[in-house]
């Protein structure tokens, strides 16, 4: 076993490469930032209309609702909230995953590092500028204390981990499902609806709201935004997200072992 420090350096470098790889697609990222901004503005007007008709809906005032809109727009790129799949899915379909599994490294950590590098790049290009534009145009809720920033940062980071954990499972499902387009599409729907991307989950009454808010997708958008707005207890929020992230990553580790067995023993 190589020393821990070397292993850390390896994954750090993979994250750096994930960042650099995505920065070579600058035009795509800028187009994404533009789309995020435009849709953010459109969504904001829809939410403003809704909150003017029903003030205080879901426990938010109108400024909170617009803030929710732009912060959730900011999650789209880094967390791939419309179900964008990991490159791994393509490698499973092409059989290249056999090469990945042969490397003296963990496929899951490798993919995670790569995805976090990508997420960080998209955060800078596709999340920060649209949010600043939204703040300039509409005025967003300011954080109640300075501590809100690191608290939101931690919650957003757990959202990223949860999103990766989910998308990794979806990508590996291609090992067992010949045509994974259906799974990808379903994942996109689940992620965009149950995360609160379409409408904040807090406005759904009764059991639908309760179920929606208990899902891993809620841990990606709804919960971090609530942490920012101060409408959800910090520790309860972090524990909820941490539990989902841990559960999905643990399932991912099991799925990785299963995929290895399938490739090595059954031949893919």
């Amino acid at each position: 076993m190589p020393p821990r420090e070397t292993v850390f350096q390896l994954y750090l470098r993979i994250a750096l490469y994930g960042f650099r790889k995505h920065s070579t697609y600058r035009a795509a990222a800028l187009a994404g930032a533009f789309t995020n901004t435009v849709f953010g503005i459109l969504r904001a007007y829809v939410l403003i209309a809704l909150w003017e008709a029903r003030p205080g809906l879901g426990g938010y005032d109108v400024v909170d609702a617009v803030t929710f809109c732009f912060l959730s727009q900011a999650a789209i790129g880094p967390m791939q909230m419309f179900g964008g799949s990991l490159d791994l899915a393509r490698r499973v379909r092409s059989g290249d995953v056999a090469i990945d599994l042969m490397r003296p490294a963990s496929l899951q950590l490798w993919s995670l590092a790569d995805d976090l590098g990508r997420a960080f790049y998209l955060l800078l290009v596709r999340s920060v500028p649209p949010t600043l534009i939204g703040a300039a145009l509409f005025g967003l809720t300011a954080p109640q204390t300075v501590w809100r920033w690191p608290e939101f940062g931690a919650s957003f980071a757990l959202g990223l981990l949860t999103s990766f954990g989910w998308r990794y499972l979806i990508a590996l499902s291609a090992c067992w499902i010949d045509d994974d387009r259906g799974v990808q599409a379903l994942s996109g729907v689940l992620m965009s609806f149950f995360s609160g991307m379409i409408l904040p989950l807090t406005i759904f009454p009764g059991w639908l709201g309760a179920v929606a808010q208990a899902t891993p997708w809620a841990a990606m958008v709804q919960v971090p935004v609530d942490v920012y707005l101060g409408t959800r207890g910090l520790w309860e929020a972090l524990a909820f997200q941490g539990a989902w992230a841990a559960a999905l990553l643990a399932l991912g580790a099991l799925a990785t072992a299963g995929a290895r067995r399938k490739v090595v023993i059954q031949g893919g």
Partner: protein
Amino acid sequence: MIEVERAGRSFTHRRKAGVLRRERHVVHAVRDLTFSVAPGEFVGYLGPNGAGKSTTIKMLTGILTPTTGRVRVAGLDPSRRRTALARRIGVVFGQRTTLWWDLPLRDSFELVRHLYNVDQGDFRRRLAELEELLDLGSFLHIPVRQLSLGQRMRGDLAAALLHAPSVLVLDEPTIGLDVVSKAALRAFLRELNAERGTTVLLTTHDLGDVERLCSRVMVIDHGRLSFDGTLGDLRATAPEESSIEDVVARLYTGGG
């Protein structure tokens, strides 16, 4: 260095044979294969399409476990000791790449250094050597997706050798290369084997590769070895003036 003892590998194919019925049928990609390769040998591994060459290589590299028999590479059971083996073996699949598509070639090498925990000094020295022998200098800084096939192949080969493995396994590395790229690759492989003593197992459909490089040839057909001997022995299986192509074609069609 490589020991294969009565190794077999079969795959179960399932196909629809009616509305509800599914037929299972077993393909024996490799059956009862026995051979060993000594350190420093340069062995050509030939056979028609579908003969079981890639399956053999996948068993040697730990991507597939044998269904029967035993495989040892550098003293290790490949599929069980994947991590330990990875440090001693270099693998190149002509049809796939291990390089990072969007990044300069040099970045992939740097990653290999971390992956195999290669000491910085050794890494610099080996890279400088490979850079010269494989003439990588002019495209080290170019993203892999923009490289020609010949350049990419040289890059893949360098990436497989940066951790100085004692065995190199190549699955159709010359596929699709032009004559100049082929010649460069051959010269490099010959030198690697002669100077460093690296054991090489090479599958190819290019008999020029075999004639110029291999001291020993194995032919596999329908999952079984149909020939194992020196290049001279191989020629001796056919009438005198036959070209090497004819000799091999006779073996493939079972006329040898």
